[in-house]
Structures are given as C-alpha cells and as structure tokens.
C-alpha cells in the first residue's frame, strides 16, 4: 500500500441493471471499507419496479458510497468513480460524476440494442460524450467468462459473476483487501460450491486484471478514520432501529409487539423484527395499517411495548388510532420512514415531509412527542429514546426516519447493553388503590394497570375522560383541563431528554437548525467550511416535540437562522411560530439527501 496515492475521501457509485447485483456489490465494498477502518456512508438508489426489463433507463439500480479518513455522514454529493455496467447506467448517472471523474464501463454491454434502449444514437465510449472524464472501458463480461472457463456452470450463471469482476477492479484501485468478500461468498454459497468458486474467481480476476494491465495506472488509498475506539459494525437505519426497539423492550422488561403492514421503505422493520422470535418479539402482519397500529395499541394495553412502522400513505391511515392512543394515554411507538410525497408520491425516494403531519395530523388537540434519527446508526438511539419516552410518559411517540436513513449504512460503535439504563414503566400493582387517570406529579403520566392484575379492572376508551377516575364525562371544564393536561404532559418530556449540544458559538451571524437525516449534509458543510477557516453555529434537534430549552436560550443571539430541510419548509413553520424569528429555509424536494455543495454556497451568503 506504500506506492498508492493518498486521498482523504472518495465517493463511488456502482450502477447497472436491477439484475446486475449492484446493491450487493455496493454492500461488499462498504463492508470491506468499514473493516479497513474508513468512515463511510451509503445510499442505495433502486427503481420502483421490481425487475424492470434489462437495459432500460428506469431499470437502473445504483449504490453510492462515500468512504473517508475523516468523519463523514453523507454518501457524497458528486461521484469520483462511476462503475457503469451498461449504457443505461451510464446515461442515468453521468450527471452525478465530477469533472475528470473516473468511469469504469463494461464495454461488452454497449451493444446496439442496449445503446438504443438507453437512448444513445452513438456509442458514448467511442465518441466525445465522455471527454472530460477518465474513461476505462473494460470488456467485463468477456473477461469474466474467460476467467471462469473451467468452472462447471451454465453461461447465465457465469454471466451473473461479472459484478464481482468489477468489484475486484475497484478493490485494486482503492487498495482494499479481498478477504472480507471472499469469506462472505463462501458463507453465502455454502450449498452451491460452484457458484462460490465462480464468484471468487471473478473477484480475483478483476483484481488481477487491474493490477497487471497497464490500463489502470494509479491505485489510491484512503486511510483509517480516527474514530472513537471500540467495536464497530456496519449497519443500516432499519437494522439499527430494530435493534434499538429490542433493546428498549429488554431494558423495560416489556414484550415487544409489532403490528405492521408492508410498505416501502419501512417493510424491512417488519422483516427484521420477525426474525427475533427467540427474543419474544411478536410481529403481526396485519390486514392493513389501521389494524397494525390497533393491534399494537391492544398489545400495549395488555402490557407489551406496542410498535408500528410505516411510511407515507400508511402513516396517514394510522392517524385515527394515534388520537385514540393520545386519549387512552397508552405507550406506543409509531415509526414513520418518510418517503417522497404527497400520496403515493415517490415511494423509493427520501424526504422529510411528514414532520407537520407528525405534529398536527390528527383530529382535535392531540399532541405527541416527536423524535427523529440523524444517521443510519443513530436510528438505534432514536428508537431507544422513543420507546423510553412512550413507556415512561404513557404516550404515543412519533419516531421519524426516512428512506435514506432506512437503507443507508454507516459504521456503528456498538454500545455495551449493560451500560444502557433500565426503563421504568409506571405500572400499578395488585392491592394498590387504582385510579386510571391519576397522574405522576412530575411527568404527569398515568399508571397503567395490566390485564391479569387482580383488583385493577378498569375500562379505557376514546371518549373524554374525567381526570383521575378516567370515567367518561362531557363536563366542559374537565375537557378544557384535560386538553391542557395532555399538552402539558408532552411539554414535560423536555425535562427527560438529552439537551442537544450547540456546535460553535452561542451567538454570531448564523445559526443553522437541522433535524433528521440532514445532519450529515450540515456536518459536511461545516467540515468543508472549517477547512476554509469559516464557521457557523449549529444545533441539530433530535427531539422536535417538545423543543429543547436550549433554543430559548440562544436563538435570539443570531443574526440569521437557516433551516435546511428536504421538504418545502416544515420545521421552519414550528420555529417561526414558537420563537418569532425570521428563519430562512434551504429546501430541496428532490427525493435525495441535500447536496453539501449547495448548502455550503447558501451558508456562505449568510456569513
């Protein structure tokens, strides 16, 4: 590795047909990079179609990752290296490539038919289309076939190995070791030794091809990032979220019950949870989203930690039951993996446009705490926090993530579960005098009485409750009081959540306020500007409702407030209303993470 050229960070994008295995290739590159010690962040970008016809533009599947020797939290704006397995992949992704960026193209796939499908009249590998880029046209299909002559496999199966050949090239180019992937292949194809053999051969062949031909002149290396010491694994948002929920269940001594219904990009939460029967996790694939949340509420009533997860249209369907959980004051975690809206919108794209729905999307006055995860790995903490507040405050909690967080991955410093504090759940015991709506004076939460507990039989429902007794009442003053009590309870959550840390000075020209997955973009923007010796203050909010006190303290100390969001301006509505500051938004509703470069430019106008 001595004779490689050092780079600080690299963004690479693998792109090909849906059937070309690009998600797999990207994941392998990520895992290897993680083990090498890079910090990294990934962005899968797959089509809405299951298997679009080969060669079409809409069938292109992409996987982008940024890996770095510095701390990073975005998959990168523009791409340094584009691996294009066919003309459509090139066409769709070229605009992401930096000037003078590297293209590794599978020249075998640039057939007349494929060119036509991609809308090219000339072969771009042969005309001037790619002037200004470093093009490496490699006959990947042919070379793979040649490498596998001796493996007893059919033509189509051999052809499927070509992504490993391409991966091998990139491993050489970025000085990555092969062993992680080789091991993975062995494990994955345990029962199909020929396939394992073929894939491993292809990987090695690609590596050796790059090493030995003179086409590729430079190999690069990206050093280990200086991360906090400890044990790491690579993790996606949906995985981390699931682990957070299981941890919360264990820490609170509750059974985890998830009522779900498949929907992109939230389905994996149901999938992953359903694997953990041995953790007493019960998943219930309901007939729809309404039944999913209803079953979760029923389970909470029966003493479990009730969870439901959905996205876009599915969340809209849950709103009636959410109001019911507010009225019955039962714990519930509602995960909203936000995607492009409105309506069915852009199901596979990311967005932050459900925040106001989370705040206000219910009939009547029905406030709920809202928490948002900031990065894939952070979904663990966010889920744990959401469950903790739901259980201690006997309230539904909205947990916001998004399509990018859900499917994106990054290294996760694995916490020691023994150091995670227990969660105390306010539950009444047999023999106690029980009033269903008597409140803890500090948290204002009510004690639950779990069916099966002798002597605490009681009834809950969606009609207005008399305070303390929980009896149904239409008394006007009681209603007014209950509306305010329910609101006050949620405000009290503020005293039980970590105070977010203000980055930078407590006064100055600019305060950037962010939430959710834009964390990464703001982080990069700050990092970028820091290198130019410029800085701004930054507050990233984990809890959106209630807002943290720190805002009261500092928000008026800044000349400008900027709120970047992947929506048309939602947190900004809340901030302006609350603090009467003329906050400005930076909003791009393109179904993609915000581009660091654009954000930096905007920030500069305020400094």
């Amino acid at each position, binding site marked *: 590795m001595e004779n490689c050229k050092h780079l600080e960070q690299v963004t690479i994008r693998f792109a090909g047909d849906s059937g070309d295995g690009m998600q797999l290739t990207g994941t392998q590159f990520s895992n290897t990079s993680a083990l090498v010690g890079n910090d990294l962040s990934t962005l899968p970008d797959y089509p809405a179609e299951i298997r679009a016809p080969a060669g079409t533009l809409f069938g292109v599947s992409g996987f982008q990752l940024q890996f770095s020797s510095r701390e990073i939290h975005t998959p990168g704006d523009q791409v340094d290296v584009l691996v294009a397995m066919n003309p459509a992949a090139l066409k769709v992704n070229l605009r992401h490539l930096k000037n003078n960026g590297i293209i590794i193209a599978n020249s075998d796939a640039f057939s007349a038919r494929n060119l036509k499908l991609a809308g090219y009249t000339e072969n771009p590998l042969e005309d001037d289309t790619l002037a200004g880029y470093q093009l490496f046209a490699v006959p990947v299909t042919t070379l793979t076939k040649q490498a596998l002559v001796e493996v007893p496999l059919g033509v189509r199966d051999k052809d499927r190995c070509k992504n490993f050949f391409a991966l091998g090239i990139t491993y050489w180019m970025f000085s990555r070791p092969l062993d992680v992937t080789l091991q993975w292949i062995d494990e994955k194809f345990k029962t199909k030794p020929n396939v394992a053999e073929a894939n491993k051969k292809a990987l090695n062949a690609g590596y050796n091809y790059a090493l030995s031909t003179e086409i590729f002149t430079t190999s690069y290396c990206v050093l280990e990032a200086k991360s906090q010491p400890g044990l790491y694994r690579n993790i996606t948002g949906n995985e981390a979220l699931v682990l957070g929920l299981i941890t919360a269940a264990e820490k609170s001594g509750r059974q985890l019950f998830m009522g779900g219904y498949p929907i992109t990009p939230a389905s994996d939460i149901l999938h992953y949870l359903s694997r953990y029967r041995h953790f007493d996790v019960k998943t219930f694939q309901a007939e729809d989203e309404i039944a999913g949340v209803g079953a979760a509420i029923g389970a909470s009533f029966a003493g479990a930690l009730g969870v439901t997860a959905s996205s876009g249209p599915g969340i809209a369907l849950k709103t009636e039951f959410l109001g*019911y959980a507010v009225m019955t004051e039962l714990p519930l975690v509602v995960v909203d993996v936000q995607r492009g809206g409105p309506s069915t919108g852009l199901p596979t794209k990311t967005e932050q446009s459900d925040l106001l729905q989370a705040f206000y999307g219910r009939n009547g006055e029905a406030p709920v705490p809202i928490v948002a995860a900031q990065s894939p790995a952070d979904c663990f903490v966010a889920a744990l926090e959401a469950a903790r507040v739901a259980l201690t405050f006997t309230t539904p909690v909205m947990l916001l993530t998004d399509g990018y967080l859900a499917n994106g991955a990054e290294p996760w410093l*694995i916490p020691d579960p023994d150091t995670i504090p227990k969660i105390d759940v306010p539950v009444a015991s047999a023999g106690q005098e029980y009033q269903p709506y008597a409140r803890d004076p500090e948290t204002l939460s009510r004690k639950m009485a779990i069916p099966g507990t002798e002597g605490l*039989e009681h009834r809950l429902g969606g009609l207005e409750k008399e305070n303390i007794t929980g009896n149904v009442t239409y008394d006007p003053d009681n209603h007014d009081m209950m509306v305010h009590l329910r609101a006050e309870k949620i405000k009290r959550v503020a005293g039980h959540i970590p105070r977010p840390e203000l980055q930078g000075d407590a006064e100055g020209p600019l305060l950037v306020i962010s939430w959710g997955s834009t964390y990464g973009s703001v982080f990069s923007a700050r990092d970028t500007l820091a290198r130019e010796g410029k800085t701004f203050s930054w507050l990233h909010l984990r809890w959106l409702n209630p807002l943290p006190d720190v805002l009261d303290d500092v928000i008026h100390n800044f000349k400008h407030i900027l709120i970047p969001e992947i929506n048309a301006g939602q947190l900004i509505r809340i901030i302006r209303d609350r603090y009467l500051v003329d906050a400005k938004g930076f909003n791009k509703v393109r179904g993609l993470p915000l581009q660091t470069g654009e954000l930096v430019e905007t920030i500069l106008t305020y400094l």
Partner: protein
Amino acid sequence: MIETLAQKEHKYTREDFSSDQEVRWCPGCGDYSILAQMKRILPELGVKKENIVFVSGIGCSSRFPYYVDTYGLHGIHGRAPALASGIKLANPDLTVFIITGDGDALSIGGNHFIHLCRRNIDVTVLLFNNRIYGLTKGQYSPTSERGKITKSSPYGSLEEPFNPVKLALAAGAGFVARSVDRDPKHLEAVLLEAAQYNGTSFVEIYQNCNIFNDGAFERFTNVKTKFDHVLYMNNDDAYRFGREHEKQLVWEDDRFSVKEWREKDADHAEVHQPETISDARAIALADMDGLDERPLPLGVFRKRDVETYDTLLTKQIEEVKKTKGQGDLKKLLHAGNTWQVK
C-alpha cells in the same frame, strides 16, 4: 382459551361482574338482555375477572365494556378486532370478548372482521345486530333489508344486506352461531358455548332497537309466530320445528325443505352436527332467512376444531428458541462483521 380457576373456593356471582357505571341504553333496548345473559355466563367460565377483557368499537352496543367489571377497551369505530388481536397475542392467557354492532362489524369494520375469522385468534365476537345504526340515530346498516326507509335513505335503500353468518362461514370462522336478545335461555347457552370454544367464535345476536328499528325480529320472538319461523338447532337433534315440533327440515339434493314430521322419521332423520357439518350444508342453513315457509336457524351452525393463531405463535416462539436459544441482547448487538478501533 379458558383458564380454569385453580382455587375454586371463590366462585363468582353475576353481581361480581357489574361495574360501577350507570347503564346508558334506551329503556327497552335489547342490549340489556344481552348484558344480563353475559353476566350469567361469566361466572360459569371459571376464569378470574382480571383475566377477562371486553373490547368494543363504537355504537350503542359498543358501550358494553363499561358495564362489565373486567378489563375493557372501548375502541374506535370498526376496529375492535385489531385491538383484541393485539391483546390476545400479547397475552394469550387472557379471555377476550369483542362486542360489536352491525355497522361496527360489517360496515366500517368488515375487513377486520373477516380477517379475524380467517386467522382464528381465540376471541369471542358478539355482534349485536339490530339492522340499524343506533348511536347515530337511525341510518340503514349493511344488514338492513333492501328498500329500508331511514334518514339517509328517504326513498328506500338500494342494496342487498349482508348475511353475517354466511360471511363468517366463508371467511373461515371456526365457531358460528346465532341467537336473539328476547330468548334469554337460548342466548345464555349460546354465549357460554361460544366463550368456551377455543378459536374465533362468532355469535350474531338479533337485537331489538326499540327506538329506530322496533320489531325487526318480532317474527322470531313473538310466541305467536316464532315456533313456525324459528329452527332451534341442537347438537345431534333432528331439524324439527313448529309449536309441537310437527315440522322438519329435510336435505334434498342441495337445499333444505320443509316436511311434516312423522314418528317413524326418528330412526333415520338427519341430525345436526356442527363439528362435522360441511360448508355446503352450513351455507344452506345460513341461507334460510325465516321469511318463507322455511324457518330461521338459531343456535350453532358450525363448530370446528382448528388450531388457533395464538397457539401457533406461541409454538413458533418455542421452536425458534429450541434451535436458537433464548435471545441474548449482547450477542445480538455484536452480530455480523465487526471490527475493533483502538
């Protein structure tokens, strides 16, 4: 599933199941009788009060849980099956009842209802069918007869009603029965059998709404007419009816028809066997609405022994634990490719 009282020493009485809440149905409403019969059978179940949960939707009938001194959830309109499923799956030791109306179960809640039947979660569903929306003051419901004139159908409703028994049979409910508010003994017996059944048991209860649909079931409750228009189905009994049991149903090709009963029929008459009845026959019974010369069947249509969803789930958990061992949080967090940063 019914958990028997270990300590039989304290057997409950009806009064033990009266809550402190004032009953708020219209005077004369059929719901009172159903509540009374329920309080009679609860002590018979041998289940501790604290292990019973009543779940309901919205409607007059759905106020029921308030009046029974057990655990209870007054849900939202149509969604009681969802809540109940969550309760039962989270804690299979509980005995769960769903109280619902014809609007609640079959209009807004129709989907949850059929899915519940299909899944066979061990809960008991009591559908108070008054063929009207009571709580919202008298619109036609999915069980109202075609041509019904109500506030929302001043010129008569246009659609065929559902046959709830038929729907439950087709959706797969293991236990399907029908009774009527004004026949307390019958109702009590059916409720008890339903509650004791292991699996989704469905009971349609004809219930008189004396305010908005008075007399809807008069034909089947009035002593002048009921004997000629009701067939009381009993296990292993012939299909006899009429004041003097002078009539019988006989199966002809693919339907039941009415014949006189003769003494000698006793040896060979077909008898009712809900445990083994075929779908075709059960449907043929359900098809009789008591409006022609053929009687309306009351009692248990079908009672099938099938494994419940809740048992299967419990078993699945046990099996997974057998192969994987009880989950270990630390191991879980550390799974997959890990690396150490120093």
